[in-house]
């Protein structure tokens, strides 16, 4: 589709772009103490975008000369991105980190990042892939280092920028090799070219594949490309940590799945039961091992943490590992499982981080000991936190269980050659119980009882917590509609 034609299908992104512009202009108008009002503009824009995303759909097409796909698959991830961006913006109002900073551009950058994530979810051309990743990365560097006077935040952004640039550089090198092998930048053409490659190209293909994996792996923080995660997560403002643990990860998975399915897969549509990897690309086993390693490392290291925030950072690595379990299966159920998991994970993880933000604001710390006796002093927050922890562990009847359930179901369905992976997965769930329940233990079992009860003072806090808790709980036993919606989103644009 030509560029001009494409624009007519590009409404969500256009609205988002306008939102960004409006936000920047608004930021110029507001005084510093009013700068948080920019958020309302952004939120309005996001709402419009959400509306536009829901309205689009219909025909599958490749926009801008086949670099961007419009399909339900991308739309699902866009919705995910919009929901998480909205929540993060709302959460930022209460953030203690951001006090004393001009936050207008903070919200603008979030909106730009959302735009980048949109592109990630729908890129079908390696140029667009690189472009999208870079937009997201650069915005993330900003956000991670947003607290200019805070050394941790500085350090986080430095590490992030160096590691990010490094891995995207390596990925780019891999992409260049792939380009050389196939002579094209478009996913579909690449697949056809690879299918015709002789065995002598294998080494180069593997080399490029692995290099590309570095880029993707960095985005979803898969082992062994996860090293930046704990430091960046801990140093960044907690709102941004929450955001980084959800939205870019979702978009990263979207891109990864698309890339898998279209470049290194046989190109069968997702609606079919299974597609296979191209013979000469041994993706599945590699990713399976990485998945196992990712969740094991994430879980094991999370046990050691003394800070809840850092524990959540490591646990987010583990969750990436759970989701990665479904990648090598090359089945529709696998992708389906990842999508459901991401949705469920969004609510519970944002919720957990929000409680961390809240406690940080009220108590001033984020270590486990700061949570002692929380169950008596802040029964509502502690109760909701318990729910999130239980959900993150993956116990029914919470959303976390449903996510895991679909993932494990996909793994089991794929046949007995992946049972070991399911086994590693469930063992990891048990390990994760230990550190998640530790939070609960500190809230209820440790520390003194107190008769003074404090409820959240701001209504916004209550609303956010409830808005995150309800899906976390309700999707645990009623997920039929969600499952159907996601099932309908399992349609990937397969080229002209």
């Amino acid at each position: 589709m030509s560029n001009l034609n494409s624009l007519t299908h590009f409404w969500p992104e256009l609205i988002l772009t306008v939102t960004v512009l409006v936000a920047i202009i608004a930021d110029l108008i507001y005084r510093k103490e009013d700068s948080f009002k920019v958020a309302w503009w952004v939120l309005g824009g996001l709402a419009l975008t959400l509306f536009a995303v829901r309205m689009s759909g219909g025909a599958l097409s490749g926009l801008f000369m086949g670099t961007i796909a419009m399909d339900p698959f991308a739309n699902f991830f866009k919705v995910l991105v919009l929901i998480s961006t909205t929540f993060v913006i709302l959460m930022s109002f209460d953030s203690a980190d951001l006090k004393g900073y001009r936050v207008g551009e903070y919200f603008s950058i979030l909106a730009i990042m959302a735009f980048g994530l949109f592109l990630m979810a729908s890129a079908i051309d390696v140029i667009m892939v690189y472009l999208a990743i870079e937009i997201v990365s650069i915005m993330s560097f900003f956000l991670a280092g947003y607290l200019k006077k805070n050394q941790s935040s500085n350090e986080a952004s430095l590490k992030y920028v160096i590691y990010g640039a490094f891995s995207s550089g390596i990925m780019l090198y891999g992409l260049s090799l792939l380009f050389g092998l196939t002579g094209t930048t478009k996913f579909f053409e690449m697949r056809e070219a690879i299918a015709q490659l002789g065995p002598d190209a294998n080494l180069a293909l593997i080399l490029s594949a692995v290099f590309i994996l570095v880029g993707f792996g960095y985005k979803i923080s898969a082992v062994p490309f996860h090293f930046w995660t704990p430091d960046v997560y801990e140093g960044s403002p907690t709102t941004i940590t929450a955001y980084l643990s959800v939205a870019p990860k979702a978009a990263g998975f979207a891109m990864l799945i698309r890339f898998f399915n279209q470049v290194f897969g046989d190109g069968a549509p997702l609606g079919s039961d299974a597609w296979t990897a191209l013979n000469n690309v041994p993706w599945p086993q590699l990713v399976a091992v990485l998945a196992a390693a990712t969740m094991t490392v994430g879980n094991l290291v999370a046990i050691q943490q003394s800070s809840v925030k850092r524990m959540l950072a490591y646990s987010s690595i583990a969750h990436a590992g759970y989701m990665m379990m479904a990648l090598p299966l090359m089945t529709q159920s696998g992708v389906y499982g990842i999508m459901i998991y991401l949705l469920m994970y969004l609510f519970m993880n944002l919720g957990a981080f929000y409680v961390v933000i809240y406690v940080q604001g009220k108590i001033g710390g984020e270590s486990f000991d700061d949570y002692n006796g929380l169950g008596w002093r802040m029964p509502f927050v502690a109760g909701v936190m318990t729910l999130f922890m239980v959900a993150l562990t993956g116990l029914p009847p919470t959303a976390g269980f449903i996510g895991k359930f679909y993932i494990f179901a996909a793994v089991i369905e794929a046949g007995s050659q992946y049972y070991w992976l399911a086994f590693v997965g469930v063992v990891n769930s048990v390990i994760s119980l230990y550190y998640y329940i530790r939070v609960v233990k500190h809230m209820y079992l440790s520390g003194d009882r107190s008769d003074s009860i404090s409820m959240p003072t701001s209504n916004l806090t209550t609303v956010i917590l409830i808005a995150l808790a309800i899906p976390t709980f309700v999707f645990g036993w009623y997920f039929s509609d969600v499952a159907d919606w996601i099932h309908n989103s399992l349609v990937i644009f397969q080229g002209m």
Partner: protein
Amino acid sequence: MASLSSYLLVGAVLFSLGLYGVVTRRNGVAVLMGVELILNAANVNFLAFARFGGMNMAGHVYALFVIVLAAAEAAVALAIIINIFNNFNTINVDEVSELKQ
């Protein structure tokens, strides 16, 4: 006339130098320069493939994109490093280690 493989060799050498720089340098700016080398190694590859593959202009376009993005990235990175210098009085990446103390 040099062959494709010699260009690729240049690319590979650049890439390796970049990697080496990134891994060994302690100075934040130097590390960034290593990253730039890696990016340019990729650029060399793109252009070489585009030129010798007898292909379309995609490679050139790609290289242009990379240059632009690298510039943007460098701008952000330098901004961050300046900020770091303001806070830590050093740009040695090893000394920037507040976290996990």
